[in-house]
């Protein structure tokens, strides 16, 4: 398959040569060169903006989290509790998170008009509705491209947990595709004991030389992916301990919780501290058609401990000002409680929580009606949220990527950021 982003233009060729050339010196050229506003790029680098997404797979219930409706016909058994922001109440399932509400914000008026897992997942992570034959980059790829530092050789788009390379960067190229991590250094990331450092360098130099020659005439998406995979593997080998959560203090492992999400959030802290611009942690599973309340009690107990600890740490370490945090799902869950004590898919009126970076702390945007069945104020869609995320880390979401001379809007031009949510 020919790479559609490799058009052969001078600017692209220069970037590619620079990329390959600096590889030999151990550095990757920044993707910021593709931004239409270089001054902005410099500002972002200086502040080292980062993004953390906690993805609540399956569809977190807004009624059991950010928009409780206690003692209504849809309210369910859980009560609402006050938070550190007077007047803002969230579910009693999030008591620790409630103490950090002064650092967070809630958007309660999302209507994505969709109840399908796949479509909703795409909407929320790519900022657009999926269309056949059209590919857009994942939020993580956009962030990796725009927020990466040229002095940091680590991959810019990490999924936790995961074990493979994603194909989610579209025209930004495979170097911005997600890399899955499981809290330990990638398998086989140590140089084989029988191979000397000098011999290893020689063989890599030879590989690069051969690649360069080959790619002058026959560059494709596949060859780029191979090249990128090799280079990224080398970078990972050099700094493999960044991915080793076992290096964190035992006390921190306890604070985050000795369960998967706890250790994954601790891993996220470690990655963000090491300058990785985009980290996505996934918590599974909230697709609670059955026993919604039991399962949310179980799942959110873990989330509350791990997430609140992470927010506290990011704040205490002075990182929250430069780290956008988003808790999202593919949709919410129905206000109606079904016969199995479950809630079903619901994209009509639901919520996300976000904070840090340029998000206004303690804000609540939008409103649903008394029993949560519809949005009654400031309806927003996934496209608006995507714009907001980018603006929150200092990007001009109305900007575009120059991909071989073709302008590719960073976010859906038919939407706009939620400006009142931004400082």
């Amino acid at each position, binding site marked *: 398959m020919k790479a559609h982003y490799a058009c052969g233009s001078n600017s692209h060729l220069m970037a590619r040569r620079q990329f390959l050339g600096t590889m030999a010196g151990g550095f990757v050229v920044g993707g910021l060169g593709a931004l239409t506003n270089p001054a902005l790029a410099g500002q972002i680098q200086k502040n080292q903006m980062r993004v953390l997404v906690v993805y609540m797979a399956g569809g977190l219930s807004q009624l059991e989290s950010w928009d409780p409706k*206690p*003692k209504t016909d849809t309210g369910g058994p859980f009560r609402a509790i006050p938070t550190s922001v007077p007047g803002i109440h969230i579910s009693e399932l999030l008591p620790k998170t409630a103490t950090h509400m002064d650092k967070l914000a809630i958007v309660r008026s999302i209507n994505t008009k969709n109840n399908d897992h796949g479509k909703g997942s795409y909407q929320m992570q790519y900022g657009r509705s999926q269309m056949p034959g059209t590919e857009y980059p994942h939020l993580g790829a956009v962030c990796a491209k725009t927020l990466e530092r040229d002095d940091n050789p680590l991959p810019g788009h990490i999924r936790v947990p995961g074990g493979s390379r994603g194909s989610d960067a579209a025209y930004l190229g495979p170097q911005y595709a997600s890399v899955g991590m499981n809290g330990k250094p990638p398998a086989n990331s140590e140089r084989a004991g029988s191979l000397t450092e000098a011999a290893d360098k020689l063989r890599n130099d030879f590989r690069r030389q051969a690649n360069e020659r080959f790619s002058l005439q026959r560059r494709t998406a596949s060859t780029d992916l191979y090249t990128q995979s090799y280079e990224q593997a080398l970078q990972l080998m050099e700094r493999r301990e960044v991915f080793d959560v076992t290096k964190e203090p035992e006390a921190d492992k306890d604070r985050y919780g000795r369960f998967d999400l706890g250790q994954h959030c601790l891993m996220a802290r470690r990655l963000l501290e090491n300058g990785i611009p985009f980290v996505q942690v996934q918590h599974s*599973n909230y*697709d609670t*058609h059955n026993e919604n309340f039991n399962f949310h009690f179980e799942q959110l107990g873990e989330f509350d401990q791990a997430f609140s600890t992470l927010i506290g740490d990011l704040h205490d370490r002075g990182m929250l000002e430069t780290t956008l945090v988003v808790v999202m799902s593919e949709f919410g869950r129905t206000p109606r409680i079904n016969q*199995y004590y479950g809630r079903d898919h619901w994209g009509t009126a639901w919520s996300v929580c976000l904070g840090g970076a340029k998000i206004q702390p303690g804000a609540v945007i939008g409103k649903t009606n008394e029993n949560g069945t519809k949005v009654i104020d400031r309806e927003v869609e996934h496209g608006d949220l995507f714009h907001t995320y980018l603006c929150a880390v200092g990007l001009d979401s109305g900007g575009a990527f120059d991909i071989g001379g073709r302008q590719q809007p960073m976010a859906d031009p038919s939407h706009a950021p939620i400006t009142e949510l931004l400082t």
Partner: protein
Amino acid sequence: MALDVMKTHVLHEWKHGKPLIACRFEPQGRFLFSSSEDYTLQRWNAETGEKIAWEAHDSWVRDFAFMPDGETVISAGCDDRIIFWPTTAEKLEPKLEIVAHKGWVRSVDVNSDGSLIATGGNDRAVKLWSPDGKLVREFVGHERDVYSVRFHPGGQFLLSGDLDGKVHQWEVNSGKLVRTFEAKDLHSYNGGQQVHYGGIRDIRLSPDKKLLAMTGLHKATNPLGAVNEPLNYLFDWESGSESKKQPAEGVGGIGWRIEFLSDGSEIVASGGNGGGFLLFFKPAEEKPYHKLKLPNTARDMSVHPDGLRVATAHHDGQIRISKMTEKAA
């Protein structure tokens, strides 16, 4: 008329109109108490179906228990509290409230002489209370949510079952853990969905005190999608050994409640993706010997003190009274 399980039929449908959660007959059989997702409790005249509904807790109520004389009903709420109510009063005002647990009180039971009340909840604690609301003892040992508590009829022991499929036998006077019955199939962890599921939904001793019965679910191939089937476990009380597993093959759902009938057989109410059922088992047999399909999924059940009527609480807002006899002419 005599008990005739094979002739069980729905005798009455009493409408509340909002999804129901729990139901329980009081010991004298005069009333049935139920709870609803609309946060009200209901008292039904057991003969006429006349209803009084009132707002009680700040959340749902998942269980009821009664003092032995039937004059006080105790509701267990998902709002930390148990509340004592006068059973027969025209206007139901709380007699006593106890903040018993942090979060849901899932189960409540009263011992045979009314001197102790047991509660269990999502905070994994099991507690004993005096009738005047004083904490007598706390039993610590469950590693997951406590789903059910039941006094042994002899009064010496308390049984508590949890999400892990474990039933702890506690010595009431000392608080000592005597032994643990493990109904392993009543719990599963689904690695794909990353959820624990199942639990001891109810515990009951047979009238001759020789069998310990519990019910719940198994075959949970898709916990989040309600794909599972009811399962009973029977243990020999004396030896503590497993006596029988009783699956209800092909009946999708959860065994919510189990009781023993006067003929020694067990009755279970199940509800879930297969609809609602009354399932009848003989302790010596694995398969149910009779099933009655109910018009809507069942969520709780209570056998009337006359041993012939059984009430079920349903998602469609109906209380159904079934009679385990031949139909009246």
